[in-house]
């Protein structure tokens, strides 16, 4: 397996011709030329704004006067001692819990149902994905009508059972529940497909030998399926977290008649909505940047914790010598597949 002798001899002897040198430079430097546009653009439109958010947060910035005065960490003090930021964090986590937990349970359940030898398999898979193609704005409008307090279909139906109208747009829990419902409706099927893919990667022999040992359906689900899809499960949780902490559209559009975004009492004002309101309604760019920067740190911290957990799961698995899981590269998965980017945008 030697390279052609002529080629070898030429490089060894005579000085390189211009063409050869050009070719060498091409082989050596072209890769940088290919990755450079991405890094330049990403630095400019992705990273620089994040760093600059911190700079803006140290100023008394508004649109008319521009950068205003350098006030150090005053914006952070204002936000950390005021009620708005904490309220928005509480709401964000409340909505996040109300959406993440039912979503995961529902997605796992539907994935398990889909993970069978179904008739019209691709129809059922498509059907669970249907809500995903309805844009968040349309989702918010549709559910805003369904959850109308006076003429909403949900309250109308509840009235048949003698239940008083629920104040979806004024009560804190009801409002957060309604917003979580929109998120769940759009994303459960999507997550079910991710989990389904993981379930299908579980070797059939495992189920067969478990059946021979007399394990029933439920038993097989809990002791084979669930442990096997754990890495994907963690991945779904992480993406749900990154997306869930940035919910904006649903609370923004839930109640058009409310003068205050996020409800009359700010009862479902998420942090992203709070940032938007501070900056673009109240012209407090400095304070809004401070909140954005704190949210960034929170999300990155949660990401790191997730990463640590995922890694420990990965090492735990190699120890317990599960060969069937060898193909998963858990640690990488913590920050990978397709849903990360897609979910961030909601």
């Amino acid at each position, binding site marked *: 397996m030697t390279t052609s002798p002529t080629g070898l001899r030429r490089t060894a002897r005579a000085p390189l011709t211009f063409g050869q040198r050009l070719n060498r430079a091409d082989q050596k430097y072209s890769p940088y030329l290919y990755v450079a546009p991405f890094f330049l653009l990403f630095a400019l439109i992705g990273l620089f704004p994040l760093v600059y958010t911190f700079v803006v947060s140290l100023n008394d910035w508004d649109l008319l006067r521009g950068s205003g005065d350098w006030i150090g960490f005053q914006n952070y003090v204002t936000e950390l001692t005021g009620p708005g930021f904490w309220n928005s964090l509480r709401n964000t986590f409340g909505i996040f819990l109300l959406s993440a937990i039912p979503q995961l349970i529902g997605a796992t359940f539907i994935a398990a149902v889909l993970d069978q030898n179904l008739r019209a398999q691709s129809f059922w898979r498509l059907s669970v994905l249907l809500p995903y*193609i309805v844009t968040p704005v349309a989702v918010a409008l549709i559910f805003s009508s369904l959850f109308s307090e006076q003429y909403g279909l949900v309250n109308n139906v509840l009235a048949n059972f003698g239940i008083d109208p629920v104040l979806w747009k004024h009560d804190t829990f009801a409002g957060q529940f309604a917003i979580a419902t929109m998120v769940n409706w759009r994303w459960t099927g999507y997550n079910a497909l991710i989990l389904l893919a993981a379930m299908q990667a579980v070797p059939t022999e495992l189920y067969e030998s478990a059946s021979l040992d007399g394990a029933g359906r439920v038993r097989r689900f809990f002791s084979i399926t669930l442990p096997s899809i754990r890495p994907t499960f963690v991945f779904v949780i992480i993406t749900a977290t990154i997306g869930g902490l940035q919910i904006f559209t649903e609370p923004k559009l839930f109640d058009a008649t409310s003068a205050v975004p996020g409800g009359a009492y700010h009862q479902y004002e998420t942090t992203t909505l709070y940032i938007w309101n501070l900056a673009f309604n109240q012209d407090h760019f400095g304070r809004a940047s401070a909140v954005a920067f704190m949210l960034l740190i929170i999300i990155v911290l949660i990401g790191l914790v997730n990463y640590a957990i995922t890694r420990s799961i990965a090492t735990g698995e190699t120890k317990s010598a599960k060969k069937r899981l060898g193909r998963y590269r858990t640690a990488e998965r913590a920050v990978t597949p397709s849903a990360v980017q897609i979910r961030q945008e909601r």
Partner: protein
Amino acid sequence: MTTATAPRRANPVPRRHGIRGQKPGWLTYTILAIWFTVSAYPLWWSFVAGSSDTTVLTSKFPPLIPGGKFLENASEVFATIDFWKALGNSVIVAGAITVSVLFFSTLAGYAFAKLRFRGRNGLLLFVILTLAIPTQLGIIPLFILMKQFGWTGSLGAIIVPTLVTAFGVFFMRQYLVDVIPDELIEAARMDGANQIRTFWHVGVPAARPAMAVLGLFTFMTAWTDYLWPLIVAGSNPTLQVALSQLQSAKYVNYTIVLAGAVLATIPLLILFFFAGRLLVSGIMAGAVKG
């Protein structure tokens, strides 16, 4: 043990296990049918309500039959917002973002997957780390910059912040690293092809399936985005921004709003009809690869 359902996925092992060995019974299909109803009804509701007059809003049970007033309500939508202009804007914005993301991602992903250069692993690690960072939180400085450049109100301002994504580069890299054999690149080089020719004649053709998936999801993401266009669009709204303006009044007429929601969903329903399977396989492949 061949199954009736053709295994479209890469792994040809026949699968009939699930959590049970035997064929699924009526319970399975009942559950799936209920789930389908839950998934589809809100959309159907918006069509039923969007094609009726306001009396539909007082119905005591979920109405199932559309009314005959859809065109009437739709013309009300067209009178309230500039629907066609917004639709055109969305096509331009999502299209431009998709082309740009595909181009830069394929180029960089190919280099990361198949070319050797100093610092490759370090740079790739950097790309992976940035995946977990929500760049969406940089909107305030981005807005300040757009304002200073005088770009607000132009489509360019909506497009520029998502010209490249770290995810796109990583996705293409993961795909290409397995799919192109190193020998093929080596052979092209032996034949005297320079780097860019090798990329064009070996890399791009091999990347096509992944480009289709990445393009589809990039388009969807750009199409559904609301926060950033809301901030910079001004008098040049995308479809999502225009749609949200339907209910920005003190009194909200939901039959009109829902007719608008239906109109705005039609393009994606068409996309779903033609590319739904690609979406499904893209989501499922994204999870398996990693």
